């Protein structure tokens, strides 16, 4: 029996044509650097094209100019101030939206009756994309700080509500039965049973919410703001300072990445603290 399968396998192998090895091997050795090949190539093209002055600086600034713009922005403190403003807007909005989303999601997750009344309305409202709220909120709240925080909170609210509700519903019934048998108090059931079981889903909601929060904040800052990284970008766009724009774009990308990393650090910390899934 074993002989037969061995024979079948070797037969299979023999039929496959051998690939020439030489182009693959050196790349496999440089595994880490393969990922850098394309960026390095792009950078070289960028450098070459701008050094040869094939395109005007207003279309594509030289790498050195971007680096200088970045230096000027940080030395003057403009970048730090505006970045801090943007990040604190995200912070407040994310906090408010998460809190509201957790409450509504928990309400819909724990109580079928509540869900029956609220869920259809919630789902209809969640069909409206975040940017469609912008003119409405601009009329109601003006273009001050409240607009940005409410918009960011709304962007976070929908995914957090949905994932909280789903996370609580998906807690296996036998865990809850066990909690009842052990006569855990409500608070302890929540802390020791529901929360650890729902944690992964909660965090996928937080994560999605945070991405959306950053996206919406940049959008609202581009449209209606006098502070923040989005505004810095609009400002440099009006002055045709493309080097500043590229520098800010890189900062926006880095800030988005940083926020995401912070959240996954939070997730591992909480997961360790509450012992993960029971």
């Amino acid at each position, binding site marked *: 029996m074993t002989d037969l399968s061995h024979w079948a396998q070797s037969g299979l192998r023999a039929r496959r044509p051998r690939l020439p090895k030489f182009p693959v091997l050196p790349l496999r050795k440089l595994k880490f650097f393969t990922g850098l090949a394309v960026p390095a190539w792009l950078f070289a093209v960028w450098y070459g094209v701008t050094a040869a002055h094939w395109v005007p600086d207003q279309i594509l600034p030289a790498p050195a100019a971007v680096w200088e713009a970045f230096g000027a922005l940080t030395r003057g403190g403009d970048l730090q101030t505006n970045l801090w403003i943007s990040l604190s807007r995200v912070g407040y909005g994310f906090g408010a939206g998460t809190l509201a989303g957790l409450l509504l999601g928990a309400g819909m997750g724990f109580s079928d009756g509540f869900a029956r*009344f609220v869920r259809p309305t919630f789902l209809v409202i969640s069909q409206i*994309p975040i940017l469609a709220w912008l003119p*409405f909120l601009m*009329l109601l709240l003006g273009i001050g700080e409240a607009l940005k925080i409410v918009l960011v909170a709304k962007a976070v609210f929908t995914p957090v509500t949905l994932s909280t509700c789903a996370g609580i519903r998906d807690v296996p019934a036998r865990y809850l039965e066990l909690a009842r048998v052990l006569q855990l108090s409500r608070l302890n059931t929540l802390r020791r049973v529901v929360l650890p079981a729902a944690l992964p889903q909660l965090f996928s909601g937080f994560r999605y919410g945070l991405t959306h929060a950053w996206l919406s904040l*940049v959008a609202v800052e581009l*449209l209606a703001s006098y502070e923040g990284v989005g505004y810095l970008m609009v400002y440099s766009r009006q002055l045709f300072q493309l080097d500043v724009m590229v520098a800010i*774009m890189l900062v926006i990308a880095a800030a988005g990445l940083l926020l995401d990393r912070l959240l996954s650090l939070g997730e591992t910390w909480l997961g360790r603290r509450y012992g993960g899934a029971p």
Partner: protein
Amino acid sequence: MRRVLGSGAVLPILLLSIWAASVHFGLLDVRLWSSPELVLAGGWAVLRDGSLATALMASMKRDLLGFAIGAGLGLPLGLLLARVRLADKLLGPTLNATRQIALFAWVPFLSLWLGNGEQGRVAFIALGAFFPVLLNTHLGAARVEARYLEVARVLCLKPHRKLLKVILPSALPAILTGLRLGLIYAWLATIGAEYMFATTSGVGAMMMDARDLFRMDLVILGMMVIGGVGFGLNALLSHLGHLSLWRGVEQSL
């Protein structure tokens, strides 16, 4: 089912009546909060003079064009990255880094490079659809079960047959998710593009004009129309997914 529907309708009716009543009795300023009747009347007016239809057509056209371009690039690239190791190693990190840039940060660049016209808008919408389609296609095509690939090898399928009969069918659910997300993002980008690029056509531009004129009724109507279109596109794609070409194969596998 009827009872469920009934209880779901309680809250919207309650909210609508509170809204109508508080405007009626002067608790809310009608100029700021508008009212259900005004929204209906405004809706009827833009429906009759055809301006809503024109705006909607303009928006839908650029949405679908941008989506087609973005998805048309994202889908094959996702398949390539998932099935060819070298392509993944080369392009994967670059694409992942590019993905981190918040979508709307591209607007100033695209408007500079491609101009404030339709090209910039469509490119922006395509960018919005591109990444969700790419990521989900990649996810689906990278997770084809090993035994299906073994079957393909045993049957000595040619590469294009393997792609059509094995990889695409088993990646189909993920691809459909990607297309649905891509459509959602493309619609979001369409609205954003109509706000940010100098535009005179489209639902987004209509809403911004209504805001400038302080016409809350038209702003609320615009929100409802945008929500409705998003919902409709989503439902259409889910329906297409059920009718899909490979469904039979997917089930038999």
